[in-house]
Structure formats: C-alpha cells, structure tokens
C-alpha cells in the first residue's frame, strides 16, 4: 500500500484536523482558565491531574453525559442545526491552513477566499441557534451577532484585499513563502509595501476578535446582559459544540493573522522554518486574545458599530488606497 497516495493523505489530514480542533478547544479552555486565574491572582484548575491538565477531559465527559434538553415550542430543525453550523465551517477552514511548507491538507490557490467563505457561515449558526431556541435573550443575541458580523466583515475584507494586492496571490502557502528570510520580510514590517502595515494588522486582529465573538466584542453571549446569549437554551453537548466552534474560530482567526502578517511558519531569523514557528506565533496571538478578554469590559452594540464604521473602515480604506498608490508609484521612483 502506498502511504503517500492521495486518499490516505487526505484521511490522515482529516483525522489530524479534527483532532487539532478538538484538542485546541479543550486545552484553550484550560489555558483560558489558567491565564484568568493567574491574572486574577488565583491558580485556576489544579485538582484534576497535574496543573489541572486533565480538567478538559473531565469537563468533556461531563458535557457528554449531560442530558440535551430540548425546550418546548422551539424550531426543532433549526435548534439542532445551529451547533454543527458553527463548528463545521470552522473545522473546514483548517483544510487550507499551512502549518508548515508541507504540512497542509489542501494547498489550493484560493485558500484565503475559501476561509472567508466558510467564516461567513458561522454567523448563520449564531442566527439560527438564537432564533430557533424561542428565547427572548437568544433572539436579541442573534440579532446582535448578525449586525456585528456584517459590520466587521467589511474592514476585515478590505484589509485582506490590501494584502492580496501586495502578495498577488490567494494561496496561503505562497503568502508565507514570500515572507521568508527574517523578521523584516514579514508583512507586518514590510514598510516598502505600505508604511501603515502595523495598522493593517491591528485592524485585522480587532476584526477577527469581533468576528469570533470574543471579548470585548462578545455581545452575542454577554452574560451580564443576555444570560448566555444565543446558547441560553442549549445544554450538554449542544452547548459543548457551540463552545468548540468558538474556540476553533479563534484558532482560525489567529492562524490567519499569523499567516498574513507574522510570516506563518517562517523563522524570525531566517533559520529552520517549520511548524514550530507557526505554533509559537499562533499561541502568542491566542494568549493575547485571552489576556484581552480578562482585561477589558465589554463594548456595547453601538460602540462596536461606531468603532467599525468610524474608525476601522476609514483606516482600512485609506490603507487600501495608500497601498494601491504605493504599488503604482514606488516602481516609478525606483525603477
């Protein structure tokens, strides 16, 4: 049997991706609780296993053994459809993520486009979950989630278009390859392409926080306002799948930021590129996301829309124009 045959390769990647998504969901909860604990000068989980490392396992078993309560007067199809709708696109997005030069499930040329196509499905999961549960809090949360996602997709996509103008490709692996040879070839420091690259990165990072419903933009599940938001009525593994989907989305968002701006699997010194560099950068970004959650209060819906329409979109548009101008003008000055 040829181990390098395409079906076996795909199967291995499929299993690997699902395992990666599930393990990340489980251990990001652990990391989140540990970081939260130490930020608040507590310890966090510590009883189950060394440093509480088995805590996610126990939590998972608890969630799976719990009864999935289906309330009366709900829309039974939408209610059951919503959690997978949030999780599956997130897991699918991993298919095009290049963990290293060779470690990528499908190295397709439209990788970036595919991720954004999938990313826009997850808002459907939030909407259907909120709408299908026949709960006022959930409906409010669903409405918030949709307006938030619509508002933030615009600056995010404008930033991505800026990036595509610079990279001339939608292939994620190719984008990373262009950033080889040291930290100053990463797009975040590529001053020659656009002097405001750092701002582009911040816009992208903020937008990915908002897209993944993370604090301070977690309006969809604002627990002090809407109890548990769109998953108020979900219990057991229904809630568990929502949760996994959310963490998978965070990983996707941070992976994209790593690939587009921080040089993906490239080493900052130009030596030994590989999957470890990708993971280091990825987890530093995820750690930042977690730290943000445990530092800031939540914004309101109008604060969020104000930020999007009055700050992020103008800056992103300005960046787009500047980049376009740079691409045309730079070769004229230095032919």
């Amino acid at each position, binding site marked *: 049997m040829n181990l390098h045959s395409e079906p076996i390769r795909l199967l291995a990647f499929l299993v690997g991706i699902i395992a990666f998504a599930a393990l990340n969901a489980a251990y990001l909860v652990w990391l989140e609780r540990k970081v*939260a604990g130490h*930020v*608040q*000068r*507590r310890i966090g989980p510590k009883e189950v296993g060394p440093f509480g490392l088995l805590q996610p396992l126990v939590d998972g078993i608890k969630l799976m053994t719990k009864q999935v309560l289906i309330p009366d007067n709900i829309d039974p199809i939408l209610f059951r459809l919503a959690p997978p709708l949030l999780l599956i696109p997130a897991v699918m997005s991993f298919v095009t993520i290049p963990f290293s030069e060779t470690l990528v499930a499908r190295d397709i040329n439209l990788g970036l486009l595919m991720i954004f196509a999938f990313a826009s499905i997850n808002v459907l999961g939030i909407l259907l979950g909120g709408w299908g549960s026949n709960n*006022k*809090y959930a409906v*409010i949360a669903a*409405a*918030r989630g949709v307006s938030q996602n619509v508002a933030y997709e615009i600056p995010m996509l404008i930033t991505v278009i800026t990036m595509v103008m610079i990279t001339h490709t939608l292939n994620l692996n190719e984008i990373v390859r262009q950033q080889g040879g040291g930290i100053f070839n990463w797009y975040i420091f590529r001053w020659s392409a656009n002097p405001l690259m750092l701002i582009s990165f911040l816009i992208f990072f903020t937008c990915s926080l908002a897209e993944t419903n993370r*604090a*301070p933009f*977690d309006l969809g599940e*604002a*627990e*002090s*306002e*809407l*109890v548990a938001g769109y998953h108020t009525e979900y219990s057991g593994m229904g809630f568990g799948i929502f949760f996994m989907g959310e963490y998978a989305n965070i990983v996707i968002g941070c992976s994209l930021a790593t690939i587009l701006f921080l040089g993906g699997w490239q080493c900052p010194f130009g030596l030994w590129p590989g999957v470890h560099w990708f993971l280091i950068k990825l987890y530093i970004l995820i750690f930042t996301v977690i730290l943000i*959650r*445990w*530092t*800031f*209060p*939540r*914004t*309101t*819906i*109008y*604060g969020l829309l104000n930020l999007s329409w009055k700050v992020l979109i103008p800056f992103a548009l300005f960046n787009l124009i500047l980049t376009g101008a740079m691409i045309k003008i730079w070769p004229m000055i230095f032919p």
Partner: protein
Amino acid sequence: MSVLASSDCKETFVLNLGPQHPATHGVLRVKLTMDGEYIRHAEPVLGYIHRMHEKMGENRTWAQFMPNTGRLDYLSALSYNHGYVLAVERAAGIAVPERAEYIRVITVELNRISSHLVWFGAFILDLGGFTPLLYAFDDREIILDLLQAVTGSRLTYCYFRFGGVYNDIEPDFITGTLAFIKRLRERMPMYHNLVTKNIILIKRLKDIGFVPAEMCRKYGATGPVLRGAGVGYDVRRAEPYSVYPELDFDIPTYPEGDCMARYMVRLDEIEQSMRIIEQACAKLPDGPVMAEKAPKIIKPAKGDYYAAVEAARGSFGVRLVSDGTTTPYRLKLRSPSYSNLSLFGEASRGMLLPDALALMGSLDLVIPEIDR
C-alpha cells in the same frame, strides 16, 4: 434615542429581567417592555426576599433587633448598625463615650470602603470586565480580616451596642488599618489605569444613564446617586452625628449626573474614607468603649424619634415610635436603595438594554435592603 422612545411602535415584547439574572445581583425582577433592544417601559418588581424586618422589630426588645440591622444591607452592615443604635440612643438619651464614637467611625468607614470596593468590582462585572472584581476583592479581604478581628464576623456585623461598642479594639487593629490604607493608596492608581481610563469603560459610562438632580429630588434618591447629580448632600455634613464634625473630609460631587459621575463619586469617596480613618486613628482617645450608665433594659420615653446616617448607598433613616415599653411600637426603616431603585423606571426609558444595566449597576442596589 428619544425619537425611538416616543414613537408609537406597537411591536413590543416583555422581557423579564430577573428574579434570577446575572445583572440584578440577587432577586430583583424588572419587567421590561422592549422595542427591539430599546426599553420602552421598566417596572421593578420587589418583594422576593421580603423578610418583614420592620414587623419583626415590633415583636422584639430594642436590643434584640440589633442583628436584623446587619442583614438589611450585607455590604455595609455597620452603617445600618450605626443608624439603629443612634436612633435608640437618641430615644433613650444614652451618651456614648468618645472612644466608642471614634471606633464606630473607623469601623463604619472601613466598611464603606469595602462596600464601595464590592460595588466597583460588581459594576465592572456588569459591564463585562472580570478581573477588577477579583482585584477589588483582594483589597476587601484585608478589610474583612481587620473587621473580623474586631467584631468577630465578616459580613453581617452586630458590633455596636446602645451606649458604645461590643468590645474594644486592639492596638494591632490600628496598625493593620493604617497599613491597609497605605496599601490601598498605592493600589488606587492601578484601578484608575486599568479601569477608569479605559476607553471602553469611558464610552460605556459617559453620557449614559442620566439622572439629574431634579429626578433625584422627585424619588428621594440620596448618596452617590445624588452627589453624582451635583448635589453635595451628605448626612455626615447635613445632619452631623457621631464625631464627624471634628473630622476634615470633602464631599465629592460631580455635576454631570451620568454613570461616570456616580462611578467617580464612589471612587473619590474611598479616598475620603481613607482620610477620615487616618484622622480618626490619630485622634483616637483612651477611655471606656461602653457608657457606664447605659441601662440594661431599654425603655425609651413615649415619643417619636428619628436618626439618619450616611450609609454607603445613601441616607439610611430609622424612625422609632415608642410607647414606653420594652418593645418598639413602630420601627420604620428608610433604606436608600429603595429610593434609588424607584428612579430606574423613569431614567431607563428609551435606553438600550446594556446601557440600562450600566445604569442599574451605577445605582449600587442591594436587594435585601430594598425588600427589607
């Protein structure tokens, strides 16, 4: 916003906020008539933990009501102890030794700081920030330890007695208190950097939840709510009691009347309370802590008595009607949160749900005190 509030939109729904809801801090229920996320009408529904404290007072001796006062507002129980003790002392004409008065002031102000710290944490929690709560609790824990060493309890104190206090403080209480004040002074800039200056918080509190002085007057709101509307009314200055006239402190007022003003008033009050404690510790005289002539069985002369104190949430008043027996004829408690909550319906009209919750948080409600 006002256009939306006044428009004659028929598509409203009723949202039951509470009695079990994370933002109502207990068992308050608010019936909200909502138009989307805008509040058209808010109606607080009370009584979920009504315990008939006033009626209980009529069936007990004057002294036996003492533990009840600590259970009205569990966050600043000593102020409520103080209010009741003050009223009975006025009724029965008991003089309190000066040392006891100073001890009362020190412990009450410590309790006020701890109450404001809890409010600070819980308020930021309402706004979605988790960490400041734990930092505030870290500081509050020291106050609880200090008060526990003196009073024996951590939350529902029953420390004051008619004519003095239960027992004298120890010297290490004073050193511990001063060390705590030094620590909190060093921590305050951290709170301001982490929370007050945060742009998200400013955006959420500035020009949100407008409660003007006129509205406060209408509903009888007192305390930081009133001072946040620019009225410098504080019972400690308006109707001085205990040794407050001998102490130098300011009454922080902010004229804006929004959530930010109330937030700032409370944080400034923490600073002022620290000043009061420092002065009181320096001036603390020697002597007994219990009046020698305090009668064992209290029988105030027939009449109507009133005393008010500045609790952490506002003016707490106790009205006593005595028929000359060992039990009160009528005992009326005027609790500040009740009045402060009353204005919520009017103030929240036309607001968005998260803003209304910011307003509710900034009123600093303690539900057992509203329901009594």
